[in-house]
């Protein structure tokens, strides 16, 4: 879901950077001492997720985990995703520095959606499972939509690329839904306090 350097028009890059900068400042302001270890752990998780490839047919997709990160960090997910994206751009050339703002916008907005979804109270077990699946599935759908929207804004030549980008993320949506469901079940079992903290985020 990273947009490479030299693809987008300057006005899109500037707008993306401005929105992300405001969101990042707000995220930093809301950061408390106790949150720092959790934010850094989830930042490391987000960073590593992009390296895990899942072969699907003739191609392969990589994990994103923006929903999972957003569910537990809330608005602080913006900071966690920013650090991970910055390191990916600087050390591995994924995305780039000029597209950092747009990439942060595309990846952290769905994380905020996940945070809202995660707060919905579910009484029955199947409702919880469905909700946790949605926490993984829906943010990737929104991220893919935002990515396609940004590519469409870039010009008519990018409309086909935008369609391909969205379709390519459909398997990721399903995979992330399943992974998030099992990860939440595991965390509820081993670290229930994370669920209480996420409700305050």
């Amino acid at each position, binding site marked *: 879901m990273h947009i490479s350097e030299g693809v987008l028009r300057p006005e899109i890059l500037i707008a993306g950077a401005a929105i992300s900068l405001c969101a990042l400042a707000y995220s930093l302001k809301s950061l408390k001492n106790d949150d720092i270890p959790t934010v850094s752990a989830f930042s490391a998780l987000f960073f590593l997720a992009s390296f895990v490839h899942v072969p699907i047919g003739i*191609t392969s997709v990589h994990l994103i985990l923006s929903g999972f990160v957003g569910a537990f960090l809330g608005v602080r997910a913006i900071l966690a995703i920013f650090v991970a994206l910055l390191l990916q751009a600087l050390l591995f050339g994924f995305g780039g520095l000029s597209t950092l703002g747009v990439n942060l916008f595309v990846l952290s907005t769905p994380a905020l959606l996940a945070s809202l979804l995660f707060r919905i109270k579910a009484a029955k077990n199947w409702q919880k499972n469905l909700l946790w699946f949605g926490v993984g599935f829906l943010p990737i759908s929104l991220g893919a939509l935002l990515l396609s929207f940004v590519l469409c804004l870039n010009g008519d030549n990018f409309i086909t690329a935008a369609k391909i980008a969205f379709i390519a993320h459909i398997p990721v949506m399903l995979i992330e839904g399943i992974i998030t469901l099992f990860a939440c079940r595991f965390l509820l079992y081993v670290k229930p306090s994370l669920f209480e903290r996420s409700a305050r985020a």
Partner: protein
Amino acid sequence: MLRKIFLCLLLFAGVVFAHKINLFAYDEEGEIFVESYFSKSAPCQNCPVEIKDGEKTLKLLTDDDGKLKFKPQNSVVSISVDGGMGHFKEINYSLKSLTKEQVLSDENDERAAQGWKIALSLSIIALIALLSLAFKRFKK
């Protein structure tokens, strides 16, 4: 618990696969062999490869193993592979410059370098966390 998560992540870092596309070439008996993959378990299958061989431009596809071979007309060719979704890599290859063994060695070097970079990145994240904690305590 968080310490355990971090330790798991560090262990995990050793086995994660590359996100970017890799492209390697070597030559044997006048033929250039091209290999392209995202990771060892995920070859770039049926990916479009463009070869600029002098004034000629060849458009080929990799096979199911992410490989292809061709007979060049010139001693220097430009090879580019498009893995889709912005995964693009281009190399300039000179005939007789690399053997299969050298390519395997280069691949291993690249994988090792990537492992170190991942470990470095995780250390930077931990360092940022420590510095932030120290800064917040100092401000108090």
